[in-house]
């Protein structure tokens, strides 16, 4: 029997159904589970209280990232530096206790492989195309850049996966976001996903799994695809997906957890079969012309508040929706901006290059290429580069990128989530502005009162030099 044409999402879904219920919800098998220190303590506590074990510790990997300071982890004598914040230290200790107790591998904060879970998963080959991947973190959508069905879950679901290696899920609707054409100079994967977020708005993807297609997406490197899929959640999508291709296979091959030998060949054949069939139907299709995308920046406090770097701060009255007008007024007040102001005239005091969106080696290379031989402007008080993992850091140092950053006046840090969210010592001071390569510009996200402008690594670097938000194409 010829089966009907299916999308990439439907194929991965169908391959993971343990049981289909009468109401259409399915018990879905989870192939890979990433665990970090913030959303797991209460899940392990619940298992312990109920006398339950972890069903598949071998499919689970624990990495601390949110709380860890990005200052050196060992002192000059090689001793581990204690974490000053008592609550952060307690969460880390909980993970260090829980992982071995339940038989889970822990990549600890002093291991070279440590980093942000969404950088570590693909880097270790733990995240694979066609796999179902979950983590108690909404940016798990990131792994969709490899063609994995990956999504964030809450702590009760973390507990559910630990205990059963499954989740009970309703199938999502499907959306194709097709980006056709060639990206212009200075336009990066980050600009693509910021632009998409502006088109779809913050809730446009709610209830959907978004598959990013089209020549502009195919032309991205794997790291660029991880950046795009990472921010699927910022338009409300459950997950993002990009069909795995030869570039994906080349990226995965040889990584520590990647399949080997005969299994590798079988895996590649299966991965190739996952691409959306010709004639398969999506519930919604959005087409974007790559030529319309320019280096982008956010002006407000929602990732949907995107404008071209060449643009101006919009007037609240320019929005049709009265509640958006109200939200825009509040955003402008919080951000200290006025309608009509040119973005390139907005002064910045901080620059953050890092986060699960933009802390991989290509991101650091792109920023370093702009910074080489230049220094940050005097009004930029704090500029840091936080590699996504210890391995990214090592690679960057081998390429001499760390010197370019430090010569330009940046601090070169240890891996972690850092200033993407105010959970560790890296925070943007109240009322100050930050050009940030992270993924969220929410009120207080980078610290109480902090004003975030989301940008690409190249734009962040250009802005550091200019001391204002800057068009990388003009530098």
């Amino acid at each position, binding site marked *: 029997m010829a089966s009907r044409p299916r999308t990439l999402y439907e194929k991965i879904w169908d*391959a993971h159904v*343990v*049981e289909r*219920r009468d*109401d259409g*919800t399915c*018990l879905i*098998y989870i*192939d890979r589970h990433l665990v970090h220190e913030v*959303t797991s*303590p*209460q899940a392990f*506590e619940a298992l312990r209280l*109920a006398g*339950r074990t972890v*069903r598949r510790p*071998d*499919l689970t990997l624990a990495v601390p990232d*949110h*709380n860890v300071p990005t200052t050196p982890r060992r002192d000059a004598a090689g001793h581990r530096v204690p974490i000053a*914040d008592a*609550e952060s230290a*307690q*969460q880390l200790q909980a993970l260090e206790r829980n992982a071995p107790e339940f038989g889970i591998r822990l990549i600890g904060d002093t291991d070279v492989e440590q980093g942000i879970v969404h950088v570590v998963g693909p880097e270790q080959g733990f995240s*694979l195309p*066609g796999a179902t991947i979950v983590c*108690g*973190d*909404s940016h798990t959508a990131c792994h969709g850049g490899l063609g994995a069905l990956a999504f*964030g*879950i*809450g702590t*009760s*679901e973390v507990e559910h996966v630990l*205990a*059963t290696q*499954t989740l*009970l899920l309703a199938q*999502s609707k499907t959306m194709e976001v097709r980006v056709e054409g060639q990206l212009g100079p200075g336009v990066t994967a980050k600009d693509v996903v910021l632009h998409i977020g502006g088109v779809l708005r*913050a*809730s446009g993807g*709610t209830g959907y799994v978004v598959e990013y297609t089209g020549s502009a997406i195919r032309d991205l490197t794997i790291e660029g695809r991880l950046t795009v899929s990472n921010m699927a*959640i910022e338009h*409300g999508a*459950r997950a993002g997906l990009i069909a795995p291709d030869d570039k994906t296979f080349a990226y995965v091959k040889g990584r520590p*957890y*990647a*399949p080997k030998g005969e299994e590798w060949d079988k895996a590649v054949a299966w991965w190739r079969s996952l691409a959306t069939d010709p004639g398969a139907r999506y519930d919604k299709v959005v087409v974007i012309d790559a030529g319309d995308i320019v280096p982008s920046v956010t002006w407000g406090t*929602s990732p949907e508040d995107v404008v071209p770097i060449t643009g101006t701060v919009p007037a609240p009255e320019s929005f049709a929706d009265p*509640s958006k007008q109200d*939200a825009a007024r509040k955003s402008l007040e919080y951000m200290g901006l006025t309608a009509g102001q040119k973005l390139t005239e907005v002064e910045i005091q901080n620059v953050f290059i890092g986060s699960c969106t933009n802390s991989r080696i290509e991101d650091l290379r792109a920023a370093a290429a702009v910074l080489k031989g230049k220094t940050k402007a005097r009004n930029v008080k704090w500029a840091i580069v936080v590699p996504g993992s210890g391995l990214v850091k090592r690679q960057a140092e081998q390429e001499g990128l760390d010197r370019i950053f430090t010569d330009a006046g940046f601090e070169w840090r240890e891996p972690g989530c850092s200033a993407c*969210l*105010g*959970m560790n010592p890296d925070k943007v001071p109240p009322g100050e502005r930050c050009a940030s390569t992270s993924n*969220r510009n*929410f*009120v*207080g*996200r980078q610290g*109480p009162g902090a004003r975030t402008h989301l940008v690409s690594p190249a734009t962040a670097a250009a802005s550091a030099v200019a001391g204002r938000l800057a068009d990388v194409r003009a530098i």
Partner: protein
Amino acid sequence: MDPLREVSGRAIPFGRKNVDTDVIIPAKWLKTITREGLGKGAFESLRTDPDNLFDSPEFSGSPILIAGDNFGCGSSREHAAWALLDLGIKAVIAPSFSDIFSGNAFKNGILTVVLPQDAIDRLMEVAQTDPLAIDLEHQTVTTPFQDRFTFAIDPFRKHCLLNGLDEVGLTMARGAQISDYERQARENTPWLAHTA
């Protein structure tokens, strides 16, 4: 989990759109290793305003929250649901919810009610002065003024909420089916069924 059949009482007429989980509970409150006590940090940035709804004598401790579109967007932190519970909120009514938040709410026995914007507008008006009643069995929200709005809910979620069922326990009872799946996966996709 306690069974949930009805939620009635005053409703906080909050009404805001795109309320993200950083607003519901800021990151600095995520450092706990237990589920209790997060009500103090709930909506912290809004509660610096002395006239905020959450601490007003009229609405403090209300079991229902009315919000705008896309409530609970942003991070996956279940602390958002725990913070609402700790504030005493048992049901949230909004035109739409983020997928992750509504799952987290359900797993903690919080009912999320989706109603169209015009119904929300009416409930916001009533909530200023009068209580609301949500009946999960009959899937209705009613006011003292004969308004009656019906809402849809996933039958499985309804069943679990009405009976206070623990989802982990229910799935563990399907252990044999999960083992069958794992056997097949070892044959078909062995590179997924184990790690190198």
